[in-house]
């Protein structure tokens, strides 16, 4: 058995958490979030987390659980509209918040993981997002400097891993997971299935195992935020 596979989410986080740490958590809304590792983070009792995640979960699921317990000091996100406790803590000044445009957030993670400390983007030029940032013209257009992000710990969710940490994601549950996995000083992946190394087709691997240090098999609720359907007679 590879040394990357752990039995429980709590064991997979052992020795990795400390107060004041920066944690990246993959997912978009509640889709493809590391449910088990978020629970394990809650149980670890680690405090003053800076959480980098596109969203903040809902009140009783996802990162919302760490807001309930006041373990998060600051969030870096692009959209947080689905969470009442978030709203309460933010308006009362208990929680710091940095909004990043979604694509800028994704690229900051990708860049951080790729060893790129900064990059220029058109996104946000002329808006609040650009305030205080270096502006520079390229080919007659203005861009702003954004910095790469690196986290003390990245927690991500994939459908499958082999024992060397090669990951395969499912549909739109991929989202922020690969760029955040790249940007973690340590990355822990929770998966639905761990297969023997060699079982995954090398051409089908979405994220090479070099970006993943620990793996744990989880159990998943996979909550749906907006259940939308169509009637059969329409088609």
């Amino acid at each position: 058995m590879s040394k990357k596979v752990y039995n429980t989410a709590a064991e997979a986080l052992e020795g990795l958490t400390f107060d004041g740490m920066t944690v990246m958590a993959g997912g978009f809304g509640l889709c493809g979030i590391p449910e088990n590792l978020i629970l394990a983070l809650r149980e670890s009792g680690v405090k003053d987390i800076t959480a980098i995640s596109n969203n903040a979960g809902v009140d009783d699921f996802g990162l919302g659980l760490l807001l309930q317990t006041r373990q998060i000091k600051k969030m870096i996100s692009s959209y947080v509209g689905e969470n009442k406790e978030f709203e309460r803590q933010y308006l009362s000044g208990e929680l710091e918040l940095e909004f990043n445009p979604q694509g800028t957030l994704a690229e900051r993670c990708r860049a951080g993981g790729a060893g790129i400390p900064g990059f220029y983007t058109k996104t946000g030029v002329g808006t609040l997002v650009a305030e205080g940032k270096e502006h520079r013209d390229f080919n007659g257009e203005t861009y702003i400097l954004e910095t790469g992000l690196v986290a003390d710990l990245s927690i991500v969710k994939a459908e499958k891993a082999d024992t060397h940490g090669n990951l395969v994601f499912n549909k739109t549950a991929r989202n922020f997971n690969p760029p955040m996995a790249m940007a973690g000083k340590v990355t822990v992946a929770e998966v639905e299935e761990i297969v023997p190394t060699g079982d995954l087709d090398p051409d089908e691997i979405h994220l090479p195992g070099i970006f993943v240090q620990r793996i744990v098999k989880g159990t998943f609720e996979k909550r749906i935020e907006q259940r939308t359907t169509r009637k059969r007679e329409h088609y």
Partner: protein
Amino acid sequence: MPWTRDEMAARAAKELHDGFYVNLGIGIPTLVANHIPEDMDVTLQSENGMLGMGPFPFEGEEDPDLINAGKQTITTLPRTSFFDSATSFAMIRGGHINIAILGAMEVAENGDIANWMIPGKLVKGMGGAMDLVAGVKRIVVVMDHCNKKGETKVLKACTLPLTGKGVVNRIITDLCVFDVVEGGLKVVELAPGVSMQDVKESTEATIVA
């Protein structure tokens, strides 16, 4: 008669062309998908990481791993591909999407758009809106001409914090279609029974001939 929401969406669908890659925002823009002609080949992008978005699933076939940017359950098509968020915004920021059709709280005669934040109210975040308006080749706004208080949303200058500066190409409201041109907005189409005078009375922005 001003256009209804559905008629505005139908009008916006005329902005699409065969072979286009398209991003539709939340609200009226989402309805545009219902008006794409059967024989037109259009691929919808969802910025959470999907190209080739299909319709809503049949009841009982919802997949929590398959959602759109509005977090609604959806389906795939034969052409569908999935990718991570960084790749998704490479498509958007890199100018590979032909057109984005978005809602707005305010637009201005210089093409400024505000649609993410009202100071003093809860700020939910800009999501992918700033990336879309900065990176997509053509930006079409679909919105009511006036807000619920009857105040115009078509202004000389936006009062709300901007989503993007000088980025809007065309505005479709319930009263008319504007193009953003040198010196202001040009009316290129009127809703049936709406006069130029009606538009002028409901618009603060400079209207140019």
